[in-house]
């Protein structure tokens, strides 16, 4: 604490100079008359130190300047790499889609050869539709949810931050999707992400994720099915009542419209899971 105490007392922080001066004065008093020591070398120490300081500053400045382009170059290289990898992934995804369609076509051709095959094919189609493994199209209902419009921070009377609760949360989306299923929707997609029976809708940080992919608002939930029937069954349901209440209290966007022709993509690859009997329980 002596540093701070000295500072507040207005003391000299470096008492060395004062002591040296006092010593010199004592010596001068004894030997008579102040005189410069080491006549020729006087000042060379100061010069040396200052030259060293100058070199230090110049080198540090040069070092910083040299570091800048390197950092920028590394950054741009990383950005380029991200772009390249993304393009690569996209190409692989497209190839996967082509191959999957090809497999589908061949399977259909193979199954069409026999009666049993055709029956299996029909069962497979039903299962695929239920598992969201095949693209679906038809008429349906589109429900749009959106965060409350942000209050203009410059407007008089604005509370600085947007009103709490003016955001759409993952629970709201879950309630809406469950309500649509209950109303008899055949297939549902959120912002073009097809939902399966096991798709997770959850929040990570600020974003709502569907199938672990983040969504951007507004959230468009597309339900496939007879629009009139869907709407009749959905209107007045618990989900509808809850969303209406949210709209009134917190100003979130909530709109429903019919869509004559919607296309929903297939969900991501279906991972098949099997039950395996445990060894000790076996016969």
């Amino acid at each position, binding site marked *: 604490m002596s*540093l701070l105490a000295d*500072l507040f007392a207005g003391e*000299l*922080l*470096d008492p*060395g*100079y*004062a002591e*040296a*001066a006092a010593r*010199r004065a004592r010596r001068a008093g004894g030997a008579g008359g102040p005189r410069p020591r080491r006549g020729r070398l*006087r*000042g060379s*120490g*100061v*010069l*040396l*130190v*200052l*030259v*060293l*300081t*100058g*070199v*230090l*500053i*110049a*080198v*540090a400045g*040069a*070092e910083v300047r040299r570091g800048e382009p390197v950092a920028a170059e590394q950054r741009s290289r990383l950005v380029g790499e991200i772009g390249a990898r993304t393009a690569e992934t996209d190409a692989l995804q497209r190839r996967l889609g082509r191959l999957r369609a090809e497999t589908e076509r061949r399977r259909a051709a193979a199954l069409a050869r026999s009666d049993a095959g055709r029956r299996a094919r029909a069962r497979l189609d039903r299962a695929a539709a239920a598992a969201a493994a095949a693209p679906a199209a038809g008429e349906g209902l589109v429900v749009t949810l959106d965060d409350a419009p942000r209050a203009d921070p410059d407007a008089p009377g604005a509370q600085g931050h947007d009103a709490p609760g003016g955001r759409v949360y993952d629970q709201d989306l879950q309630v809406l999707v469950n309500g649509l299923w209950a109303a008899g929707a055949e297939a549902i997609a959120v912002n073009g992400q097809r939902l399966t029976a096991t798709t997770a809708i959850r929040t990570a940080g600020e974003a709502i994720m569907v199938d672990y992919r983040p969504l951007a608002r507004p959230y468009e939930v597309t339900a496939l099915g007879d629009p009139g029937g869907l709407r009749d069954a959905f209107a007045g349901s618990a989900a509808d009542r809850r969303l209406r209440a949210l709209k009134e209290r917190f100003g979130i966007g909530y709109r429903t419209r019919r869509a004559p022709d919607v296309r929903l993509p297939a969900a991501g690859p279906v991972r098949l899971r099997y039950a395996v009997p445990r060894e000790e329980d076996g016969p």
Partner: protein
Amino acid sequence: MIALIGLLIGVTLGLVLQPDVPLWLQPYLPIAIVAALDAMFGGVRARLEGIFDEKVFVVSFVGNTVVAALIVFLGDKLGVGSQLSTGVVVVLGIRIFSNVAGIRRRLFGA
């Protein structure tokens, strides 16, 4: 006068020679500069107060830089390098400010 010339010579030397700083020395460079600045302002203040002493100046410069670098080195070894660097910068910064305040009082009487 001699001081200004020395500083100018130093900066020119550094810019012309552009010495390559080895990687292990780089963390100590900024700290050494702050320590050198502290010694410099202390010297200027002593000069203005008429009690400048060359030996004290040289010793305080060398001592400051070496101790500052040593603290940072020790901190790096102990895993608290950045915190100790901050500490060194704070302490030296306070000293620099109070020295500059002394200089200001001498020069402008304010």
